[in-house]
């Protein structure tokens, strides 16, 4: 194996795809951190973001920067709706036994999966299963040469967005009252309730914020990819989930780091193996992490409720 410019290009390719995973993993991990349940519908929020973005673009042809606030709003609405349909009903019992019940947690896992399937099927009915093209003026696909390697403008936008999202979230979590509430609920929901935190509102806020990030990720990746479909959320959703588990479940910077690691590993592995094997790399890394670092690479080993 030669460490030439092609190899460097592979690393850059890997970082680009890793950024796509990271963009999705951020919202995913935020929601997991608060409720300790996997939100299977995150991929659909991502898809909704992409489709609403495309509809706005085709209907009104606004400047790209005007699309983003709209997609953020749609994301927030779908996050709140999702919480109301799939998660709130399972929190109506507030006694300690129910709060700690595993069965309750697993029930929400399935309800979010149900919402995800229903949403996807509805989108397939409305938009069809085919790929939808993005008008060319909005594509984030211009090649940009950085020295000898090439990146797409979309990779840079996605990288910058991931960095901004990560920074903004860290600020929200560690510098604001709302963030303190989120961290308290994340740490111990019952305890937070006892000290007077409005846990319901905190959870709704978390869903709104997480889904805003998810929807933005969807439209950006759509513009970068050049085509969107009702199934687009699934594959990056799985990778984001793996990144979250490797990163220690509730560590957002950990999930981002692992997402980049996954992308680069997949890309470099293509140099040695057929690319048909790249999922094997992802899951091998997951197994290795779980065997040798059961708390994840960036986990704090906190007590699980």
């Amino acid at each position, binding site marked *: 194996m030669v460490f*030439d410019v*092609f190899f460097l290009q*592979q690393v850059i390719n890997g970082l680009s*795809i890793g950024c796509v995973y990271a963009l999705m993993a951020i919202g995913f991990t935020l929601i997991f951190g608060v409720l300790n349940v996997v939100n299977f519908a995150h991929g659909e929020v991502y898809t909704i973001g992409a489709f609403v973005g495309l509809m706005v673009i085709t209907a009104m042809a606004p400047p790209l920067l005007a699309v983003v606030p709209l997609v953020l709003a749609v994301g927030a609405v779908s996050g709140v709706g999702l919480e109301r349909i799939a998660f709130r009903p399972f929190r109506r019992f507030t006694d300690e036994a129910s709060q700690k019940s595993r069965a309750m947690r697993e029930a929400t896992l399935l309800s979010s999966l149900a919402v995800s399937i229903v949403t996807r099927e509805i989108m397939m009915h409305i938009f069809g299963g085919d790929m939808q093209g993005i008008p060319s003026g909005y594509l984030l696909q211009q*090649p940009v040469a950085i020295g000898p390697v090439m990146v797409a403008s979309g990779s840079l936008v996605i990288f910058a967005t991931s960095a901004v999202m990560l920074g903004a979230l860290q600020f929200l979590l560690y510098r604001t009252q709302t963030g303190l509430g989120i961290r308290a609920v994340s740490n111990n929901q019952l305890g937070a309730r006892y000290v007077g935190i409005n846990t319901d509102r905190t959870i709704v806020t978390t869903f709104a914020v997480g889904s805003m990030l998810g929807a933005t990720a969807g439209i950006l990746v759509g513009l970068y990819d*050049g*085509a969107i479909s009702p199934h687009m959320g699934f594959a990056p959703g799985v990778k984001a989930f793996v990144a979250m588990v490797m990163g220690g479940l509730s560590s957002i910077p950990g999930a981002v780091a692992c997402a980049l690691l996954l992308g680069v590993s997949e890309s470099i592995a293509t140099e040695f193996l057929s690319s048909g094997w790249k999922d094997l790399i992802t899951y091998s890394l997951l197994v290795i992490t779980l065997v040798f670092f059961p708390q994840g690479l960036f986990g704090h080993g906190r007590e699980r409720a």
Partner: protein
Amino acid sequence: MKKHAVFGAALGAVVGAMLAATAGATTAQAADREIVIGYQAPLSGDRSQYGEMFRNAAQIKLEEFNASGKLAGAKVAITFEDSKDDPKEARNIAHKFLDNSKIVGVIGDFSSTVSMAAGEIYAAEKMPQLSQTASHPDFTKLSPWQFRNITTQAFEGPYNADWIIAAGKKTAAVIYIQNDWGISALDGFVSGFKAKGGKITATEAFNPGNRDFRSILTKVARQKPDVIYLAMFYEEGAAFAQQREQLGIKIPLYGTSSLYSPKLIELGRESVEGLHLATTFTPDNPDPAVQTFVKEYAARFKSEPGMFAAQAYDAVGIMLDAVAKAGPSVTRESLRDALAATTGYPGVTGATSFDPVTREPAKALAKMMVKDGRFQVVTGP
């Protein structure tokens, strides 16, 4: 939709009346023999849109043939049966067709599975069968009574390989989708390309659903092949071409006919400019035979004929020409022999010849490239 059905019914009535009129005329002459071809296809259910196209195209061809006077002393008719894309139904139809002594040959069915279910019976009872679409390798291996006029990757791969070699390009990398079809496309191309003295620099598979080809592109570009050959469908093809452009890779693209779809250009835009592929049928082909068919079909059925209608149009044409060759006293045996002797049938899906031993079709495919945002026929290498 409703309008369409009403139109169809009206058309059916008109055609029926015309057929009745011609039938009346022939009985008057009394000497004319009536020869019947059975056509089995899905006319109801999930796949009925295909059967519908087959029937439409078959009607056009049949009328052309009977008007042409190629077969003196006999009239040919086609009897349609609805197989519902169901192997059980197809077997029942096979028995029904075999019991009708006027039927000397059968066209259909649509899918390979259903065609083969009926084909086993035709093979045992000695009835020539020609499928317009069954592409499974085992279909023509059933017996010497099975024919098809659709090409497979075992034909298309070497055809494209010849084209690339003729253009002076000696090395190729192949990117293929990891499924049965993709592997057959890979095998077809690689064996053809090597046989012509070409060199394969890499073969790379990807899983269905994959959207990111940057790592494959980077890996393949290192060996600087003269062309990249794509065995995939338009969704992946468009993504591949876009990412190739982003990475600044200039290696020309060739692909399988599966990429031939307006969607490829809609999704891929400028990035698919210059992509080459060969396909059996294109409504844009300036060939007068193609233009006559396209205009006639569009005028009658208010839609542009696609590959499936064209395949059926040619299947009927090949069958009828074989009937004409065998003469008014045609039998199932003599029709089979006439079919096997088909050479250079000038159809709308390219001139078709059957290999007398394997009964696999060889066609002159239309060579095309994407130019100025649409598929255009190219002449020469």
